[in-house]
């Protein structure tokens, strides 16, 4: 049962990712990205990481992609204004070939993973366990990432501000 759910979710994730690259219309690409993200959330749920499952949907599907689609729709790109992509298929083909070595590496890393896994603690993936882990073991990286985000936010505001007329 779990295997079937995993396969269906993975198919959706891969299909969404392919659609994201292959679709011509930007809105279609963004929408297929949502399919990938929700499928990934489902895989998190399968791995009993319930907090990540919810946060994936809230943050990525609920906020970031909404903003992305909002902007794409706001620009309201006409069909005729979209760039023509005559060599798209060939580019994709060579791109895929160029990525093959990376895939090989990932596959090797995957095969080296220990197959026998210890059973998880009962509170694995819950908010409390995750929060304890973050704020005890990983406190410094966590705070550094917050500062990075803050810097990015301020940078965004500075760049987005209209130039004052001299």
């Amino acid at each position, binding site marked *: 049962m779990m295997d079937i759910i995993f396969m269906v979710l993975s198919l959706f994730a891969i299909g969404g990712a392919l659609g994201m690259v292959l679709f011509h219309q930007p*809105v279609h690409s963004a*929408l297929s990205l*949502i399919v990938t993200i929700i499928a990934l959330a489902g895989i998190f749920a399968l791995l009993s990481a*319930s*907090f990540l499952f*919810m*946060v994936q*949907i*809230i943050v990525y*599907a*609920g*906020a970031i992609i*909404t*903003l992305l*689609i*909002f902007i794409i*729709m*706001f620009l*309201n790109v006409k069909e005729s204004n979209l760039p023509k992509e005559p060599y798209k298929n060939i580019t994709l083909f060579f791109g895929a070939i160029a990525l093959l070595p990376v895939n090989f590496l990932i596959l090797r890393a995957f095969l080296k993973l220990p197959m026998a896994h210890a059973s998880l603690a009962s509170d694995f993936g819950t*908010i409390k366990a995750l929060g304890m882990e973050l704020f005890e073991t990983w406190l410094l990286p966590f705070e550094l990432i917050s500062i990075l985000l803050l810097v990015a936010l301020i940078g965004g505001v500075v760049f987005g501000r209209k130039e004052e007329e001299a």
Partner: protein
Amino acid sequence: MNAILVSVVVVNCVLALLFSLGAAPILVWIERRVAGLIQDRLGPNRCHIKGFRLGGLIQSFADMLKLVFKEDFQAKSIKQSFFFSLAPVIVFASAFLTFMVMPFADHLVIGEQTFRMQGLPIDLGILWFLAFAGLSVYGIMIGGWASNNKYSLLGSMRSAAQVISYEAAMGLSLVSILITYGSIDLVSIVNFQGNTVFGILPSWGIVLQPLAGLIFIVTAFAEANRTPFDIAEGESEIVGGFHTEYSAMRFGLFFVGEYVAMSASSALIVTLFLGGYHLPYFNTQILHQHMNLFLMAVMVFVPLMSLFFARWIRRNNRFSAQVDIRNRESKVLLKVLAGVNVLIVVGLALFLIMGLGETGVHIATAVIQVATFAVKLLLMNFVFVWVRWTLPRFRYDQLQDLGWKVLMPLAIMNIFITATVVVVFGV
């Protein structure tokens, strides 16, 4: 898998369906009758089946039938047929999913087993609501975009901007609530509210966190796209907004989805701030201890209320003409009312004489809590309707100002205050 498990799950599913989907016709009815009341007119009261009008409730079913049998028209200019049909489905499904985690009663203990009284028995609570409430905006955006119509696109843009801005304030107001309750599980949140503070007030969320409550209720109105935040539709400005091009059942799904979303928001407000399924001053333990007294009170209270209701029917639902078909409704209703009363009183008396036993007490508690939840849900839905017909729509810039410059700073301030109080007093 045993019989008790299956029956509890079935009861939960039926309850969740009743409170969300089944509530839609009733909410439509409340909406129109309250609109009538506020605008000093009657509202729909003519539609009937052999004289049965039920105060106009039949009108809602007639409307639903009309939507089902209408021509499903689609303009030729709509190229994205798939997305056009997908949009109402997303709105409806996400509204429906948000309702599934609302607890109707405390954990039900039957023998050795404990059951969660929710549509979906999971403890993700608030996060689940936030996730699927956030997804519903896709339906509105895709619908407006696929309609290939200026007004539709304008409506969906407005709606998306509004939801994005208000989700921030909503999330921040929820943070202070989570600090207070220390859990995201809705059942433990409600059980936290079963006690009293200062010995007199029930420790409901609205008492402990009045500011967060206010912010959350305002943002919940915005999330449900209800007036004064209904700029997504804004019929006096942009025709019908995102659903301008929709007709028949595809419009019906938007329409029902809106009411289900409203019901889900009300359910969350009730759960977080108004004590959920608890009667004030009677938490689950007290109900367990004093079940017999409580049943006796119900035995006295229900016939008394029915008596008043019967007198009201006799006074207001009587027509002078002998052949008036509407008089039949009063007669039948009075008989049904008397029958229900006899059933309740005799049944409760039997229970009291024979003794309920532990399982019986637990089930009776669950029934009382479900009823309490239903009454609170209806009252909160009434508030939604009341606000809709009292306040005018916000202008777009006012709405954004309110969201970013008032609600968000207030929510952040509330987080600081709450955190300080919790740390200093160690509550």
